[in-house]
């Protein structure tokens, strides 16, 4: 029993790191994704192509590789000291997820009927007013389902941080296998399930709240 508490405490510590990576990634990647989305829809062709190429590279290569490159890259390639472990992971996650988010945003924005935009124009609104007053909420409603998917994937992707020895929950549980304990590994599943469960409820609530939009 005491072992169970000891393990729980240690796992909780690892889970703290997991949550930290998750929250930091979300907070930074959500706005960055929107900026990337605007870049990929830009009418200025060079910008559009550059942004789309970056998105292609990031979405087309393994996240694990990106983490490794960002952590070891600066030191090995340029001989400068890069980020610490956790910040490297966060940088890699933010870039990776911002690209995925950007595609979700783009889909959401491009699917808003053009008539909404035109109705705003005819009423003398500026582009900024149209975006914030009319389009944004409709976009949010449209992207809730794909976003919830992506965000739930992020919860579990945080475990990739262990490839550069960040002590997150799976890494902690793996440590116990050396003491001949396998159950802590399964136990980590409970943490993930609870976390994802809460997120699912939050998203369901948000969907209910925006149901009136009926776009």
């Amino acid at each position, binding site marked *: 029993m005491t072992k169970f508490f000891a393990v729980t405490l240690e796992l909780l510590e690892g889970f703290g790191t997991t949550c930290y990576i998750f929250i930091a990634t979300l907070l930074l990647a959500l706005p960055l994704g929107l900026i990337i989305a605007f870049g990929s829809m830009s009418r200025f062709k060079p910008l559009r192509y550059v942004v789309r190429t970056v998105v292609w590279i990031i979405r087309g290569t393994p996240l694990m590789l990106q983490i490794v490159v960002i952590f070891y890259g600066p030191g090995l390639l340029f001989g400068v000291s890069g980020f610490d472990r956790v910040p490297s992971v966060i940088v890699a996650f933010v870039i990776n997820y911002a690209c995925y988010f950007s595609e979700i945003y783009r889909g959401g924005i491009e699917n808003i*009927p053009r*008539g*909404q935009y*035109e*109705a705003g*124009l*005819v*009423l*003398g*609104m*500026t*582009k900024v*007013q149209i975006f914030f*007053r*009319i389009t944004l*909420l*409709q976009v949010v409603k449209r992207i809730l389902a794909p976003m919830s998917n992506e965000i739930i994937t992020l919860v579990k992707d945080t475990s990739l941080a262990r490839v550069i020895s960040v002590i997150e929950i799976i890494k902690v549980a793996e440590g116990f296998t050396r003491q001949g304990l396998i159950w802590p590994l399964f136990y980590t599943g409970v943490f993930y399930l609870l976390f994802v469960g809460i997120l699912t409820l939050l998203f369901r609530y948000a969907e209910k709240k925006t149901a*009136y*939009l*009926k*776009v």
Partner: protein
Amino acid sequence: MEYLRVEGFRKKFHQTEVLKGVEFTLQKGEILVIIGASGSGKTTLLRCLNFLETPDEGKVYLGGALFSDAAVRYSDRELRKKRLKFGLVFQNFNLFPNYDAKRNVSLACELLARERARAKKRELLAAEQGARWKARRRIAAEIRAMKKEGTAESRARADALLAQVGLQEKRDSFPYELSGGQQQRVAIARALALDPEVLCFDEPTSALDPELTGEVLKVIRGLKGRTMIVVTHEMAFAREVADRVIFMADGVIEEEGTSEEVFGAPKSEKLKAFLKRTEEHGWI
């Protein structure tokens, strides 16, 4: 006195010439009805007038003065100001689904009132050289009051307009809770909120079930006295309300005249054929 004059409108999409030099004039308070087959350029003409498309060539005169010229590239700011002179009611309503009926009508007015308040603030601050803390507070309070008043006025106006289109009891309903006819009436109230000089309708009843067109046409009829341009397939309605009628075919005005002239004594073969076709389809 001619109020609106459109001169030499041309518009090409890729290789297709949609408008091939359209010209007409309109008196203040007149209703101009534009008829013609699909693809004849009616909608493009309205969209050009509302600056949703830029014609390749052509000028618009409003109230005797040059209003817009296709050869001039206007800034976004100028375009916005010009757009306010024209109103447009869309075929498929385009109400904002995230606002209730009242907010749909009042939103643009509210935003303009806020902008006016912000402009006033800049002006007051500029006048108050090196404004001190107290003066700034006074100005901030004044502007807040001005914004509040603007919002209240816009909302009161929205209420009045919804009453005018017979929907005051639906003011808290969201678009999805309204029938097509009701949505279009809200859209008309929304277009009226900015009191445009020329109100345009782009096939306002085409997306409606036949039993709902009546209520929308009744509202439009009630606006007689406003300068309006109506593109419609409702021939009976066109004949009844039009002061002038334009028949468009293949990007040009094939025939124009008063309602009696165009419907009673059509001259061109195309118009005769068109009227015959619509009659057979039961639009008259």
